[in-house]
Every structure is written in structure tokens, then in C-alpha cells.
């Protein structure tokens, strides 16, 4: 009797282990591309992984379209989503490290995979996809096409960032779009006299304090006769420090001046991006500096107000103003895909005009595919014109190797008085860069 009990307990322990490995077996089985045999054509299912925040109306429509027409297309999608943000980045990094990857993965961009996940060798080279002809060579170069290989195709739209303004407020205050920083200050003064908050900051969502400071960095790139790619190349290899980018430090100081001059909403540390959109739409503030997300959100929530909103480039001292461009996300094929040839076809389809148009119809925006048309808000149109005139640069943070997402913290410390001057903000960024570079064993920081 006693013995049997003992065996029972042992058995429990063993069955648990057996359970573990057994389940493991089934999990690897389910990982492989599963085949359904409906109709004449084989329909293969591709597992796609992305961040929850990236699965919006566009993907929803596209997923639905593909899965409804899977018989003609020959493939289906099964989309998994994980949380975004830095925790999500960690999950993705871990997945790269453990080779626990789906067939198709949506990432920021190939450079991110290289510097943060060390997993460029786990992406399939897509060179030769037909859909590439529908894109500007220049638009793909440097990001999607990287080190001579095409690692990914673009998905989702370009985000442009600049100053969004309420036309009615400007009209009432009798002001025009400012070209230089001094003109901007004059506009602020006049708007303030009308009892309207000139500029809205949304410090509760820490990341949103960054966009106003970027104009300086773009000017620094220009002064050095290059663009943000060139500038970040120097910073990524320890040839240049943020603290030595004088325009950048200058623009940090300017954003603080706006607060000191009383041009910013008093409770800016407690207010969110959402509050900002609402205030701008309702004319409670005149200007808000952020990406075209702003126009999209106002379009969604206050559709009757969207035509009151316009946009312009952040004015700089010299008046040579550039706007910041966030490239679309990347959709890549992983080496885990059992049928890379069909996988390439899937990506080719998704990046082609047909699929991109479906995506764009559900989620209007600026798309890289030249054949796609989209009904975008006027403010976005304003910024697109600036981009089409060649006055845009790729966002510095996307191509920054070692200080991603680290500007807002010292910036807020500066605004709240914990850091004394603007240069310290840039220095904090340099310190963070150094820490991360050293942690990665980068030989430029020996």
C-alpha cells in the first residue's frame, strides 16, 4: 500500500516531465507551416508576429482580405500580437535569441534587428521582389535595403512630424505661418493675447516632448553637409557627440524658453497626447508639435474639425526648416519559414499596389508605394508637400544605435529644473550612448 503511494507520487513527477517534453513535441509540430487541402490549390498558413499597437484598421482590412481570398492567393495569415514598448522589444529580442520566430515578422527596421537583436542572419534576403519597382529606389535605400540586401518590405505609412496648428486660432490672432524662430515667438505672443495657449506640450506621455527638439539636429546634419544618416553614422561610431551638435542644444534650450515665457500649457507635465489633440481640435491651443498621428487621431475623433488643422515645419533660427520623417515599419521573412519561395510571394503581394491600397483605404496616410492613392487630412498634405520638396530627413532615433528612447527623460529633468542647462541634456544622451555601446562591446568606445 505504502509502496504504491510512493510510486504514485513518483509517477506524478515523471508524468510532469513527460508532459513537458511531450507538449514540446506538439509545439514544434504546430510551428511548421500547416497545410490545408481545400480545393485544388494548396493554402498555406503563414504566422505573422507584430506589436499590438501596429495592428490597426489597415492590417485588419488586409488580413480580412487575404484570408477571405486565400484560395486564389494560395496562402493565409495567422497574426499574433505582443505588447509594444520596451517590454515588447525585450520579448522580441528574446525571440530572436531563442530562434522562436514566426514565418513573417514586423519590426521597426532591419537596423533594429541588427543592433538590438543581433539577428540579421535570421532574415531572408528578398532581393528581386517584383513589387520593388513600385517604390522609389531612394525610399528603400538605407533602411529596407541595407548592406546590399533587401531585408524587408515597408508596411504602414510614413509619419511626418512638424507643427500642427489651428487655422481658426491663427486667423483670429491675425498671424501667418512663422518661418523663423523669432517669428514663432511673435505668433505665440499674439495668440497668448487672445487668451489661447500658444503651444501645447504633453509631458505625461514622456516621448511626446521629444519632437519639438528635433529641428536642431536636422540643421546640424545640414550644416555638416549630410543628412541624419550621415550625422548618426558619426554619432554611432563615436566620432561626434550630441553635446557638440550646437543647433540641437540650441533647440533644446528653445523648447524650455517657451515654457519659461509662459507660452506652454501650465499643466504640461500632467497632460497627455490625447489631451493635446483635443485642445488643438477645439482651438484651446494654437500649436502642437508632433507626428501625423495627430492629424489621424483628430480625423477619427473630431472629423468636423480636421479641416481647421494645418501643419508646417518647425521654424529654426536660420529659417532653413526641415521636417522629420519616420519611415514605415518593416515586414521581413525569417529563416524559420519552411517555404521561403512562397513566403517571398506573400511579402511581394503585401507590398504590391493591390494590398497596399486596401491597407491605405482603411488607414489613410502617406504610403511609399507610388501607385497607392490615399485621402489624407490637409495637415498631412501640408507636410507631404514639404517632403516632396526634399526638405525632410529620416528620424534620427530610428537610425541611432545606442540611445533609442532616451531623450525624453533628461529633457523632462531639464524642464523641471533637475538639470541646469540644455547642454546637460545632450550630455546625458552621450552618457547613455557610451553605456550601451560599451555594454555591447563596441570597439569604437575602447
Amino acid at each position, binding site marked *: 500500500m505504502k509502496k504504491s503511494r*510512493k510510486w504514485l*507520487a*513518483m509517477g*506524478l*513527477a515523471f508524468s*510532469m*516531465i513527460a508532459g513537458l517534453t511531450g507538449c514540446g513535441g506538439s509545439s514544434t509540430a504546430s510551428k511548421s507551416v500547416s497545410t490545408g487541402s481545400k480545393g485544388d490549390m494548396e493554402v498555406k498558413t503563414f504566422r505573422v508576429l507584430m506589436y499590438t499597437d501596429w495592428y490597426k484598421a489597415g492590417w485588419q482590412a488586409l488580413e480580412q482580405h487575404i484570408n477571405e481570398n486565400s484560395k486564389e492567393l494560395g496562402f493565409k495569415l495567422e497574426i499574433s500580437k505582443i505588447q509594444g514598448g*520596451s*517590454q515588447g*522589444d*525585450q520579448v522580441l*529580442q*528574446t525571440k*530572436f*535569441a531563442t530562434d522562436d520566430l514566426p514565418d513573417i515578422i514586423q519590426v521597426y527596421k532591419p537596423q533594429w534587428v541588427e*543592433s*538590438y*537583436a*543581433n*539577428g540579421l542572419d535570421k532574415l531572408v534576403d528578398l532581393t528581386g521582389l517584383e513589387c520593388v519597382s513600385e517604390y522609389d529606389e531612394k525610399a528603400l535605400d538605407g533602411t529596407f535595403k541595407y548592406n546590399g540586401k533587401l531585408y524587408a518590405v515597408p508596411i504602414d505609412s510614413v509619419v511626418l512630424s512638424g507643427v500642427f496648428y489651428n487655422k481658426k486660432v491663427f486667423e483670429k490672432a491675425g498671424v501667418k505661418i512663422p518661418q523663423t524662430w523669432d517669428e514663432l515667438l511673435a505668433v505665440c505672443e499674439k495668440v497668448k493675447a487672445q487668451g489661447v495657449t500658444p503651444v501645447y506640450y504633453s*509631458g*505625461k506621455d*514622456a516621448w511626446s516632448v521629444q519632437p519639438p527638439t528635433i529641428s536642431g539636429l536636422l540643421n546640424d546634419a545640414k550644416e555638416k553637409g549630410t543628412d541624419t544618416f550621415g550625422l548618426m553614422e558619426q554619432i554611432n561610431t563615436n566620432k561626434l557627440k550630441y553635446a557638440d551638435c550646437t543647433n540641437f542644444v540650441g533647440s533644446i534650450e528653445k523648447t524650455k524658453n517657451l515654457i519659461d515665457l509662459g507660452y506652454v500649457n*501650465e*499643466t504640461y*507635465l*500632467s497632460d497627455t497626447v490625447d489631451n493635446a489633440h483635443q485642445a488643438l481640435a477645439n482651438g484651446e491651443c494654437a500649436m502642437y508639435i508632433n507626428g501625423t498621428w495627430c492629424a489621424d487621431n483628430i480625423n477619427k475623433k473630431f472629423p468636423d474639425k480636421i479641416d481647421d488643422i494645418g501643419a508646417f515645419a518647425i521654424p529654426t533660427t536660420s529659417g532653413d526648416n526641415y521636417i522629420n520623417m519616420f519611415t514605415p515599419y518593416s515586414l521581413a521573412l525569417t529563416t524559420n519559414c519552411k517555404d521561403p519561395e512562397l513566403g517571398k510571394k506573400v511579402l511581394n503581394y503585401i507590398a504590391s499596389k493591390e494590398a497596399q491600397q486596401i491597407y491605405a483605404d482603411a488607414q489613410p496616410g502617406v504610403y511609399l508605394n507610388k501607385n497607392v492613392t490615399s485621402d489624407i487630412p490637409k495637415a498631412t498634405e501640408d507636410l507631404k508637400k514639404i517632403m516632396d520638396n526634399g526638405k525632410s530627413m529620416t528620424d534620427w532615433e530610428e537610425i541611432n544605435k545606442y540611445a*533609442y*528612447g*532616451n531623450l525624453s*527623460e*533628461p*529633457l*523632462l*529633468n*531639464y*524642464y*523641471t*529644473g*533637475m*538639470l541646469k542647462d540644455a547642454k546637460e541634456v545632450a550630455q*546625458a544622451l552621450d*552618457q*547613455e550612448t557610451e*553605456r*550601451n555601446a560599451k*555594454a*555591447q*562591446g563596441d570597439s569604437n568606445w575602447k
Partner: protein
Amino acid sequence: MHSTTLKRYSYTLAIPGLLLYILFFIIPAVGGLALSFVKILGFNLSSARFGGLQNYVDVFTQPNMRRAIGNSFIFALVTTIFKMGIGLSLAIALNRKMALTNALRTVFFLPAVINTVAVGLIFSSLLHPSNGLVNGFLRAVGLGGLAQSWLVDTNLAIFSVCAIEIWKWSGFTMVILLSGMQTIGRDYYEAAEIDGADGVTRFKYITFPLLLPAFNNALILSIIGGLKVFDLIQATTQGGPGSATEVFGTLIYKSFGAGRLGEGCAASIILAVVIAGIALPAYKYIANREVEM
């Protein structure tokens, strides 16, 4: 005798649990310990090489380290004092038969059940300096001078976060203490009544000494929870504005977030050692004072 005892309490019963614990806690913990001595590229294990104590040095040279340590201790100290104080008061007040008792006990426990993210959301809104309810109330009753930028004033924010933690967990402490009180025999109080002891004396000489084991448990959980805090800070201030409410937990999170795997592991081991160094002596000290019934 000894061998019978061992047979009577054979490990077979404990093996399934221990197995899980070893597989999913001990091995990863040892892995974490190993990683804390290693320099590693990204999350790529094949690139790991021995780095000595460098990761530990890196933890201590983080720019916000001093503030984070200070805040963690403030948080642990303030919340522990108030959670224990309020929890004890509530437990004493509700340790009697009364129509309202059951309802009130449930109400006070309710915040512990609510999701932390939701708590963060609610309080960010309640404590908003201009539209928030708290300042609105203060202004309405003529105490406008007391209105504050609760969660964004760099000196005040950490205390506001403490207040939220106290709001959320005092009821939990109350429940632990209440259950401790249920075990104190009626006869002690009857004897005291005969001796003519008043309420304060009864508490001092009967309730509190006999409550010590429960009190000790609640205290230790509170200290550990306070030093380990992360969720609540993340949900209310994300360590901000800037780095005003940075604590040890958010620093660890940021190390991992920036891909500094080794440093993150080193930091969490330091944290564990610090907590153990504080919690263990505290627990032993009080446990030695417990009276046997």
C-alpha cells in the same frame, strides 16, 4: 525515532513542487547570476564573455542610481508605516460584531483587487493639477492653497505615489491583522476586564503581543513589496517626470529595456540581497519577541 520521522515526512510528497521550482526558478536564477558576470551582445548567448564585476560597477554608476535608492527607501518606509498604522487601526475598529462590519471589510479590501494599470489611470486623473478631483475639492472648500501638482512636482511626486500604494494595500494589511486577532482567546480579555484594565492597557498587554506573528508577516510583506515596487510606479508616473520617481525596480526595467542584459541581472541580484539583508533581520527580531500562547 529519527528515521521514522524522515519516513513519515518523505520528500516524495514535495518532489513535484520542488521540481517545478528548480526548473523554472532556480535554474533561471542561476542563469541570471551567471549572466550578471558576463558581457553579452544583444541577447545573443554565443557572444557572451566573462566580464567580472563590471556589470555590478555599471549598476552603481548609473546616473540616477542615488535618486532611485533614495526613492525606494522612502517608498518602502512611508508605505510600510502607513499601511501598518492604517491597517491596524481598521482591524481594531472592525474587530467586532456590527451590522456594517462585513460590508466595510469588503470595501476596504476592494482596492487590492483592482488592476494596477487601472489604479494608475484613475489616480492620474484624480490628481491632475487643474482638472483633478482632489484639487477641485480643496479649492471648493477654500483650501486652494493646499492644491498641489501631486504627481508632477519633483519633490512631491514620490509621496503621492506612496499615498496611492497606501490606498491600494491598507485593506490587505487590515485583513491579515484581523485574522490574527480572531485567534486571540476571549478568556484573556475577560481576565483583563476583571482586573479593571482599560482599552489602551488591554491593547498594549494583550492584543498587540498576541498579534505579533500576524503583524510580523504583514510587515515583512510590506517591506519586501515596498523595496521591490515597480508596477505601481510604471502605471502612474513611469519614473517621471524625468527621473523624479525613479526606483530600483524601474532602473532594472530600463537596463533590460536598453538591452543591457548583464547589468539588469546584476541589478536584480543586488536588489534581492538588499531586501534579504533588511527583511530577514527585521523578521528575526520581531519573531524573537513573539509570545507563545
